């Protein structure tokens, strides 16, 4: 595999911010458990597109790296939780808005909360087997505003958890901030455990009067908690072992951000301190796939990514169908 680097990261968010009292039934606002620590989350506005957010974040990357980024992008990969348009994905539209002429555009439908890592891996493969040198990987979470703001759906306890936002990363061939190792796993036995439900029982694509939503019964929550608790420490351990480092060498840990209980459990399992583990849940909610790049930007802003330290990414998606981890080495300035 050709060596790739995480060159730059930037984010963009919808303007609308919803506080906790937007959700739940009157007199029973979300609190404790999976809602612990939640305060705010952004919601996609009507008419706002994932393309808008990707382009806004990419502009910030352009400002960071200089040059003419659009003309140098060889690969655009996107993962948007609920796409702007079915069928097409948004990668080509992003290229159009940026004025880029990429040789590869893929809109990934799967991998959810670990899709940032999966897209890094895919970009590395494409760069290894082609002349591509630079890739934009774009995560956008859109379901909070598009599904969970519905006036009926937002009464459900889980509706306060998702938050919308976008993270874009620029990867390039080189070893400035090298991606040392990536592990991706698929657990097909968990593939059928996430359900889209409707209040009237119709298929979600059929016309109806009520919004569809992601369903979590209490039984499912218990199973997913057990899986998440186990999968993420395991995949991070594996990535560290295969990269030749101990988990005690984790400088900064970034995981997906499903809730603060998972975050606590993962850092306890990996013996990483709270200050080393980036947590954006209280202000952004669960950003799904966008959580990792958003947290990387946060870690940069807080000066966590010091020279000669390891940034370790890890997470699981959906109900445990995928898990992934990545080891990125932050080098001291030359």
């Amino acid at each position: 595999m050709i060596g790739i680097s995480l060159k730059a990261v930037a984010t963009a968010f919808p303007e609308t911010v919803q506080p906790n009292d937007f959700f739940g039934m009157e007199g029973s606002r979300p609190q404790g458990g999976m809602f612990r620590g939640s305060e705010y989350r952004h919601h996609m506005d009507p008419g706002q597109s994932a393309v808008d957010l990707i382009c806004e974040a990419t502009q910030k990357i352009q400002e960071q790296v200089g040059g003419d980024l659009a003309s140098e992008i060889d690969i655009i990969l996107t993962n948007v939780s609920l796409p702007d348009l079915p069928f097409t994905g948004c990668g080509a539209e992003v290229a159009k808005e940026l004025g880029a002429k990429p040789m590869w555009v893929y809109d990934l439908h799967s991998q959810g909360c670990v899709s940032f890592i999966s897209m890094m891996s895919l970009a590395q493969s494409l760069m290894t087997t082609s002349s591509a040198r630079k890739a934009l990987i774009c995560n956008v979470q859109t379901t909070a505003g598009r599904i969970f703001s519905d006036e009926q759906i937002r009464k459900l306890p889980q509706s306060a958890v998702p938050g919308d936002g976008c993270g874009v990363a620029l990867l390039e061939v080189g070893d400035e901030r090298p991606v040392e190792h990536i592990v991706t796993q698929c657990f097909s036995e968990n593939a059928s455990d996430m359900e889209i439900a409707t209040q009237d029982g119709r298929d979600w694509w059929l016309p109806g009067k009520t919004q569809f939503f992601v369903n979590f019964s209490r039984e499912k929550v218990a199973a997913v908690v057990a899986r998440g608790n186990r999968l993420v420490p395991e995949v991070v351990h594996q990535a560290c072992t295969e990269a030749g480092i101990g988990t005690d060498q984790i400088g900064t840990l970034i995981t997906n951000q499903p809730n603060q209980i998972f975050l606590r459990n993962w850092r306890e399992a990996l013996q990483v301190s709270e200050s080393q583990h980036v947590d954006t849940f209280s202000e952004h909610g669960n950003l799904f796939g966008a959580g990792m790049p958003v947290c990387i930007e946060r870690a940069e802003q807080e000066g966590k990514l010091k020279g000669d330290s390891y940034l370790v990414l890890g997470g699981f998606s959906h109900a445990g169908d995928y898990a992934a981890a990545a080891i990125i080495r932050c080098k001291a300035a030359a």
Partner: protein
Amino acid sequence: MSSYVPELSSIEGLKRIEEFDRDQMAGLCLEETHAVYPHQQIYGKYCTIEEYINCPPEDVFQYLADGRSLEEWTWSTRDFVPTDEPGLMMGWDRLADDTKIYCRTISNADAMTVDYHCAWDQGEHLWMIYLMRVVPAQLVLGKPGSVVLWSNCHHPNYDENPYPWSVPEGRDTWVGQLWHFFYAGHVVEMQNLKKILEHRHATGQTIRPWNKSAGSESEKTMTFQ
């Protein structure tokens, strides 16, 4: 029964579905479920281990209830002999030099519990208590064999020996210094127990070979189906 409920409501801190609903319980369970637990939290006050043994529960119970079996399946207790006091045995714990161990085995065939009341050095106060219970695996795992549960509690005497006069000269080790290793040590001994009993059961040997008069027939007087 429901007439007792109002009385319960005066007890602070109870969490019962009447006042603590499903959502609250679900939230609490999520909060209290960690991915890992520190060793001290799990094994600091109590040390409980468990194992499946592919040997009939009545045989496992008979074997454990006969204190002489300790010489086989424990790592270090040997050479037990009866003392003047009925039911009290004295042996040697080779874990440390010149260390006597006293043991009284108290069992209950109906409940299939076997408790070893033990102490190092002196036999007057047996405070090291090994609580064991044999459960028919057919009942709890849906297959033949036994589940053995084994618990110890962290008695304050583990932290400070109240009988210093009984310590043999020159011995620096106190059993309580090893409490932190009880989990590991007991797992070793549980595996010994499992291997011995599974071997004898699989090969059709008598479970207690030292018990020439009894034989396997008397060991199979109880059935658990």
